[in-house]
């Protein structure tokens, strides 16, 4: 079978599998967060932690709960990393250095999973499980909880209550993430991924060299890291390592897992607002952007774009690409991991062609809304949908309403704050890195490629993606500190504005649709939303894209 046919087949197989899960999983997610009853195990947790599960929170209380929980999480993970050598299951690993420990604690708490370390050579088993893996569940559940609270802004009227954060997080973990993660882990183990608590073994190879064979509960972390759009990996090379991603089957299964929940969440949205066609419209936007990005990166990686025939004949496109998966498997993975907030990789993004890498950067710059990170993609695209409705109202005289709620100046102020936060954080941090000695000393590639690496690094961290272009010395203290601040602001500031917007919507009385209401379930609206997304991102990031990947590609 030739590579192109194989590439098409795996894309179509993936699309069919995701389409098959859209309705049942989306309905289940909606059921989880609208169910009046608490499971016995949930009641036990509430009793143990002193939570009143029936308390309904104002949006600001909901935000305070998120911030307080995340603050404690950062400090807890930091403590484990800094003391792991003295704890059990350290497998001989020393305590993690303060800057790496802090950056990592922030990274996993914010669902970013940016890693300035080689996991297999830095973290003990206890840190991996009790510190990092726990956060992979919790941070994913927090993102989903914010999306659900946002949806309640549409479903509720004349109230400022958006639900109970602790109940939403508990249900997200117990009813959704743990069951799916167990199944995912079993499939990965069946596919050949390792899952053990074995010590590392040093063996002598046939040529007489010494090699360390690592162990660890890899499959279980791989499962939740993909399902929760966390990213990173047990190993330094992530899913390019055969213990983590043994073969093409596990490769496509991993891609399936990282797209599964984000692509099903619009169905939950449609179900909760009582109009499934609203969900279909949003998922159509997500699919269009994802499919176009896959096509673009695949084209440039398969044909080398403007790089010429020589490198292609010399298999230049395979530099940095895991040969077991080839350019097609790499391209599909690269796009799927950057349009979600996953960030795990099976090939080096630094080795993508300039335009291929530029698309990966643009995927992240889109705010990861196609389909985006777990929960984060949903509330991101909802804010964009409201902006689109507002723009349509200005252009063609339609009443700015969305799902029975008016989009007034107050809502637009929240939306504007939401979208200004990330560009301000990303471009400011990138400017500081490029303009100071501390940042410049970590840039190992001069010219456009170096600029792309810097912008990509901060875009990835601010959008809580976690993938890196490599080639940048982000282990330096400057990058550890600015990266950590970027991740915290990029995660929580937009959530504050999104929940403020949800609170504002919930306080409104429902507005019945009229002749002047724009129908947001039509292909026209889908096209408008795609256009607004591309224009917003294009206007914001075009200078950086032009000076970075475009300049490099056209050189």
């Amino acid at each position: 079978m030739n590579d192109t046919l194989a590439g098409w087949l795996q894309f179509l197989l993936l699309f069919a599998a995701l389409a098959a899960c859209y309705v049942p999983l989306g309905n289940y997610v909606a059921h989880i967060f609208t169910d009046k009853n608490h499971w016995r195990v949930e009641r036990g947790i509430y009793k143990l932690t002193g939570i009143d599960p029936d308390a309904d929170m104002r949006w600001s209380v909901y935000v305070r709960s998120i911030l307080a929980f995340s603050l404690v999480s950062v400090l807890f993970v930091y403590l484990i990393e800094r003391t792991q050598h003295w704890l059990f299951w350290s497998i001989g690993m020393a305590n993690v250095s303060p800057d790496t420990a802090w950056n990592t604690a922030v990274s996993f708490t914010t669902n970013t999973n940016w890693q300035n370390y080689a996991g297999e050579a830095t973290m003990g088993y206890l840190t991996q499980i009790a510190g990092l893996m726990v956060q992979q569940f919790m941070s994913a559940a927090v993102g989903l909880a914010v999306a659900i609270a946002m949806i309640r802004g549409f479903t509720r009227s004349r109230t400022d209550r958006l639900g109970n954060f602790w109940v939403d997080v508990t249900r997200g973990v117990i009813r959704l993430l743990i069951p799916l993660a167990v199944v995912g882990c079993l499939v990965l183990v069946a596919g050949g991924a390792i899952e053990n608590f074995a010590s590392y073994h040093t063996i002598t190879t046939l040529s007489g060299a010494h090699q360390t064979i690592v162990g660890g509960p890899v499959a279980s972390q791989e499962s939740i890291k993909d399902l929760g759009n966390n990213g990173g990996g047990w190993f330094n090379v992530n899913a390019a390592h055969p213990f983590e991603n043994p073969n093409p089957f596990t490769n496509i299964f991993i891609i399936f897992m990282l797209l599964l929940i984000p692509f099903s969440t619009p169905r939950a949205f449609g179900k909760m607002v009582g109009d499934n066609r609203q969900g279909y419209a949003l998922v159509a936007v997500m699919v269009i952007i994802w499919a176009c990005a896959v096509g673009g990166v695949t084209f440039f990686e398969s044909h080398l774009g403007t790089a010429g025939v020589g490198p292609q004949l010399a298999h230049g496109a395979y530099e940095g690409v895991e040969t077991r998966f080839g350019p097609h498997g790499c391209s599909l993975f690269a796009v799927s991991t950057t349009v979600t907030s996953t960030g795990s990789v099976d090939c080096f993004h630094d080795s993508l062609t300039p335009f291929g890498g530029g698309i990966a950067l643009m995927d992240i710059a889109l705010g990861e809304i196609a389909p985006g990170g777990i929960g984060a993609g949903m509330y991101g695209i909802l804010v964009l949908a409201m902006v689109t409705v507002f723009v349509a109202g200005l252009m063609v005289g339609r009443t700015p309403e969305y799902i029975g709620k008016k989009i007034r100046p107050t809502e637009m102020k929240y939306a504007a704050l939401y979208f200004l936060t990330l560009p301000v954080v990303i471009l400011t941090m990138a400017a500081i890195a490029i303009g100071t000695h501390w940042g410049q000393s970590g840039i190992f590639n001069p010219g456009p490629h170096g600029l792309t690496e810097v912008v990509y690094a901060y875009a990835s961290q601010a959008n809580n993606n976690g993938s890196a272009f490599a080639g940048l010395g982000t282990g330096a203290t400057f990058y550890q500190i600015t990266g950590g601040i970027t991740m915290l602001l990029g995660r929580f500031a937009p959530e504050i504005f999104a929940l403020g917007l949800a609170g504002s919507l919930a306080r409104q009385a429902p507005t019945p649709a009229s002749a002047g209401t724009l129908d947001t379930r039509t292909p026209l609206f889908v096209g408008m939303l795609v256009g607004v997304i591309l224009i917003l991102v294009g206007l914001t990031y075009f200078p950086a894209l032009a000076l970075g990947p475009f300049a490099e590609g056209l050189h």
Partner: protein
Amino acid sequence: MDVLPGSGVPGTAITSGSSLGVTVWDLFYVGLTIVVFAVLFLILKGIETFER
């Protein structure tokens, strides 16, 4: 995804001591965490004030 240079290289990211320098850095990072979250709480407070 990881970055190869710097502390991504096995061994360079690792410290096991508990010298005074490390303690100062620990205090710095705990303080930095609290400061960033304080800023986020202030943003929230500002919005609440604006809402009223």
